[in-house]
């Protein structure tokens, strides 16, 4: 078998396209937007805003590149039915093409193996440039026990799924976004992961250290509630939502406040 020697690339020609989040503050916070060609993970507890952000990305990927979009359809794989259609319908972005819903492909995944098979059988002709998996954690919730053998086979599945996703990301120049849940931290040591506070609980991303090695960028969404004394002396409850870059190849660790309003997710500058 004649083998073609691998050819190196020149980094000068390797520009990373970024997908806008639909808000300039959030885009700049993430170093331009969600990078294409790698896996970005959104981690947070329930109702932290992960799905909301994903739905917003489904729309922003339809924008032309001049506005930070990818002019392409997207694929939304959900593991916790039903698909949040009503929430998607409530979102809007200026300059969207007509009939945006025609360009969003939606597919449920029932298990980790189902997801793997789905990814293996994606037709190359499907021109999606945004793949969302919401959520990855739900696919691994009940199938695996805590025995070393199960943990090993679970870990092997992580790397298989991540490899398929990165392969697609590279071939299609696609952005891949995966959402993940959190688990509480009981011991004093967090182990390999950095833990954060959300709603008064100390939490780390689910799926452990092995999965952490599979994603390129990790963004943690947290919520906190506190009482604030307003200017007229009254105490009122303030809910803050924050987005933290835990690690990223192109942006330092930092955090920024955001808000979920009727028509979308916005950064608070």
């Amino acid at each position, binding site marked *: 078998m004649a*083998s073609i*020697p*691998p050819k*190196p*690339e*020149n*980094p*000068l020609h*390797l*520009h*990373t396209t970024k997908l806008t989040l639909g808000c300039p503050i959030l885009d700049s916070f993430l170093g331009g937007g969600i*990078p294409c*060609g*790698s*896996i970005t993970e959104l981690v947070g507890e329930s109702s932290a805003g992960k799905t909301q952000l994903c739905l917003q990305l489904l729309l922003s990927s339809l924008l032309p590149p001049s506005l930070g979009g990818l002019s392409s359809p997207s694929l939304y794989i959900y593991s916790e039915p039903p698909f949040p259609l009503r929430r998607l319908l409530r979102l809007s972005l200026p300059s969207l093409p007509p009939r945006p819903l025609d360009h969003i492909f939606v597919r449920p995944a029932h298990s980790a193996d189902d997801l793997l098979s789905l990814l293996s059988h994606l037709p190359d002709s499907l021109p999606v440039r945004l793949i969302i998996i919401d959520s990855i954690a739900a696919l691994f919730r009940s199938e695996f026990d805590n025995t*070393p053998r199960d943990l090993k086979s679970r*870990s*092997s*599945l992580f*790397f*298989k799924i991540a*490899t398929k996703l*990165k*392969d697609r*990301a*590279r071939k299609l120049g696609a952005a891949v976004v995966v959402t993940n849940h959190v688990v509480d931290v009981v011991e004093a040591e967090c*182990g*390999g*992961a*950095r833990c954060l506070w959300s709603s008064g609980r100390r939490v780390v991303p689910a799926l*452990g*250290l*092995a999965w*952490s*090695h599979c*994603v*390129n960028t*990790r963004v943690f969404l947290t919520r906190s509630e506190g009482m604030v004394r307003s200017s007229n002396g009254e105490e009122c409850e303030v809910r803050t939502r924050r987005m933290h870059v*835990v*690690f990223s*190849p*192109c942006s*330092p*660790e930092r955090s920024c406040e955001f808000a979920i309003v009727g028509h979308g997710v916005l950064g608070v500058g």
Partner: protein
Amino acid sequence: MEISCLPISASHRAKLLSAGYTTLSSLSSVSPPQLSRDLNVALQEAVDILKVSSESCRVEVQDGAVEFCKGAQTAWDMLSEEQALRHISTGSGDLDSILGGGIHCKEVTEIGGVPGIGKTQLGIQLAINVQIPYDFGGLGGKAIYIDTEGSFMAERAYQIAEASILDTFDNFGCQLKEIPEKLKAESFLANIFYFRICSYTEQIALINYLDQFLVEHKDVKIVIIDSVTFHFRQDFDDLALRTRVLGGMSQKLMNLAKKFSLSVVLMNQVTTKFTEGSFHLTLALGDSWSHSCTNRVILYWNGNDRYAYLDKSPYLRPASVHFSVTGKGIRDATSQCKRVRMM
């Protein structure tokens, strides 16, 4: 004749290479107790290894004189050659000093750590710093960057290149009115041969191809694989096969390092291992992999601070140092002022 041709077992060969014995001449002056300490083998095994190596050395030549075969050098020659080889700076003076000046050529260095600790950042920094011109204390070489995870971002490499060039000029107190083409960040980026690898078979094929590539590109002074682990954490139901494949790969990389006098830097991931009743963080790829590298550095968090620990080295003692990842790249943790590097 090199160590690789000796009729000894594969594990002995790997131990010899990772302890720094790569030519027969290096074995000619070591005593059996010393060798057994260095290799961590029984005394009898060390005696056997030395016996085999001295037998392979003897070659009959005219005039009845016994002459050591080609490739043998005196220890003095080796020392001068080593001194002539510069180290690749990591960008952090503190980190360089626990490494004995920086990353060494002719050796394989493994760098392991949790996600986000800075492995890729360090890899990019080394790919840039290897290019610092000889006149400015660097190697003036090129880099091969093998990306298996997709974390290499060209924009970040550009940022690090710009900062490294500026800091180099500052350290030497020179102000160039016009920066020559080859000292611009664009040239530094163009001197990185970037390979994106998507499976373990591609990884092995590329490493096999490197010998030919390096013959055609003799100015490459560093090969970085980020990470060497990723494609090996799946699909290997037969662990013995994985160990053999990894062993063959590490052998090839060590040979490349020696043959072309370059440094090989391998990024590794961490995993949890259950020993003695509790979980510990340990480097991935198993126990047999730990013999595959000459040096090992572990990057870890201490609270919110990044630390590097020199875990394995043939001649430096273990040490820990605080470093940081900044907008400019890898730097010392506490330097607010620029450090003047004395040559």
